[in-house]
């Protein structure tokens, strides 16, 4: 009971360096298709970056390169000082420290909510089950669904599933969180509960990269908005300047189409 009133504070795991993610001249091709073209992006500690752009512009590919779900073919990506190469140990190290939330939640349907949360801590971090359960319940309280702990993902609403997915990522105590269109598969009525969770996370000082078209969220939370088109970063700026005074013509066109 006491825990419900005093929300457990989240302290993002400290970064070893001041730079959370450093992408230097990154290129990527799918076959002949040039998806990422000379991406240079430096994300510092506790920074919140929102990445937007038309579909097919390479936003998702960009953040998926950060935990090596996609491989880049040129340039360098450093995550808290660890460079992503073919070294599997390094990749595992990065993945342990980088949480990811997907558009389609990707919860494990054959496991209960609690098991979804404790699986990686137990098998990857080698936490004892009791401790992992405790931590998981803490995070479920943070995302406000502790009562769903023993249900299966399929029994929850989309918004609840996405909050479970966020809690699952947090259970690994990540330094950085990646969000790949976390609200675009949700019914409109459920977007807010997920965004609220993300706002809270931002307030706790988490370093976040968010691919999203939720411009309200971007305005409220982001330090920087990155606009991408055709695999390139076209414009990056603080939210106010980005929305009120977009520089590039492509940005203006995009904004005029999504802000009615």
């Amino acid at each position, binding site marked *: 009971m006491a825990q419900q009133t005093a929300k457990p504070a989240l302290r993002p795991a400290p970064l070893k360096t001041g730079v959370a993610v450093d992408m230097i001249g990154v290129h990527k091709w799918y076959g002949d298709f040039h998806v990422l073209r000379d991406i240079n992006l430096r994300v510092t500690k506790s920074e919140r970056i929102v990445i937007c752009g038309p579909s097919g512009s390479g936003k998702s590919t960009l953040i998926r390169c950060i935990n090596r779900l996609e491989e880049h073919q040129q340039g360098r990506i450093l995550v808290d000082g660890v460079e992503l190469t073919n070294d599997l140990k390094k990749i595992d190290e990065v993945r342990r420290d980088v949480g*990811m939330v997907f558009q389609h939640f990707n*919860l494990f*349907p054959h496991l209960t909510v609690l098991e979804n949360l404790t699986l*990686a801590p137990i098998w990857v971090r080698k936490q004892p089950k009791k401790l992992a359960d405790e931590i998981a319940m803490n995070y479920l309280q943070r995302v406000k669904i502790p009562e769903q702990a023993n249900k299966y993902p*399929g029994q929850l609403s989309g918004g609840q599933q996405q909050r479970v997915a966020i809690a699952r990522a947090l259970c690994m105590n990540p330094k950085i969180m990646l969000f790949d269109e976390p609200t675009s598969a949700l019914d409109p009525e459920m977007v807010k509960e997920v965004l609220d969770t993300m706002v809270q996370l931002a307030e706790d000082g988490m370093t976040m990269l968010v691919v999203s078209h939720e411009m309200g969220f971007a305005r409220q939370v982001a330090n920087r908005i990155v606009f991408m088109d055709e695999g390139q970063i076209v414009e990056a700026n603080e939210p106010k300047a980005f929305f009120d005074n977009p520089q590039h013509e492509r940005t203006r066109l995009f904004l005029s189409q999504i802000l009615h």
Partner: protein
Amino acid sequence: MSDIATRTDAKLMEGPAFVRTMPLLPLPPPMAASGAIGWLRWNLFSGPLNIALTVVCALLIVWIVPPLFKFLVVDAVWNGAGRTDCLATPGHPEMGACWAYVFDKISFFTYGFYPIEGRWRVDLFFVLLAVGVVWMAWLNAPQRGLGAAYFFIVMPLASFLLLYGVPEVLVGIGHWPRIGWLSALLDALNHVLPRVPTTQWGGVLVTVVVASVGIVFSLPIGILLALGRRSRLPAVRLFSVIFIEFVRGVPLITVLFMASVMLPLFVPESWSPDKLLRALVGVSLFSSAYMAEVVRAGLQAIPKGQYEAAMAVGLGYWQTMRLIVLPQALKITIPNIVNTTIGLFKDTTLVFVVGIFDFLMTIEAGRADPAWATPVTSTTGYAFAAIFYLIFCYGMSRYARFVEARLAAGDRR
């Protein structure tokens, strides 16, 4: 009451604006669409083709079932001591199935030539197997992980010791370093379970052994082959593909002939392993290729997002497979695994071509017994075999249907 509500709202709909004033209550469906009449109309007489098929099926049933019932039950002889009891007599002019023959031969059909004083070992083996099968098949059984360990490791070893006895090699090793308790244990085991060479095994025992060894080995090997075929390592993938395609391209009989006829040509007599063992290896490898394709289908049904989520939380390849992918993939492939198992169970009859005395072979042998020579002996034997296979295969297929229904109802995705 609900009629009124419908009418009220319908009236309101005439205007340009509409606000529902009272909620509609759910109504029962019209008579013609539900109940026994609705079912009959929809399923048996919904159209000319359906009516024709219904009539044809009804005629077929009338044509086949009564004579079959007459032969198997009405005219059948249930008690008797020899051939004369099953022959036609003036009081019993039409011969039916001679079940007395089956009852008389039932232990031969079950154990083959397994020594009579050791048949409790076979019975115990059947019990061990039944426990394992129930444990695996009962989806909510307690400790299913333990059940799998029992089914795939403990049971096969225990069954081997039980049915065969302590192999000579093991006894030799036990005596060699002269470890007192070990050789004593092996001697005691050897005494309680004297060795029964597989040439004496027969009947249902052999059929069940071949089928269950096939299943116990083909599933794990099949899973490994399926994973191998989807592996990113070219050597592993190539090996899996070649193995699967080669085995699938060769008839089981060929595999069995190869194992029992060709192998001895290449290795000296003393090296050449037991005949039953060779058949077991052949059957296991053969069905593992089929299992591999079944499992692969299940693996392909798992969405890419599951792999990505597992990778993103830092799970390695084997952890991802064991904890995330295989539990889901195997669950959806259970009906197909059972299907392959049914095929395997029936294919075990082919081991007769290499001179192994399986259940069907004992029935064949039983036909020749002059003490039971009647015109209906063969038919009765085959009918018994058919019923035996039907019960097992139908049981398995019902189980697959049950699992399918359970999964459909509890689809939690």
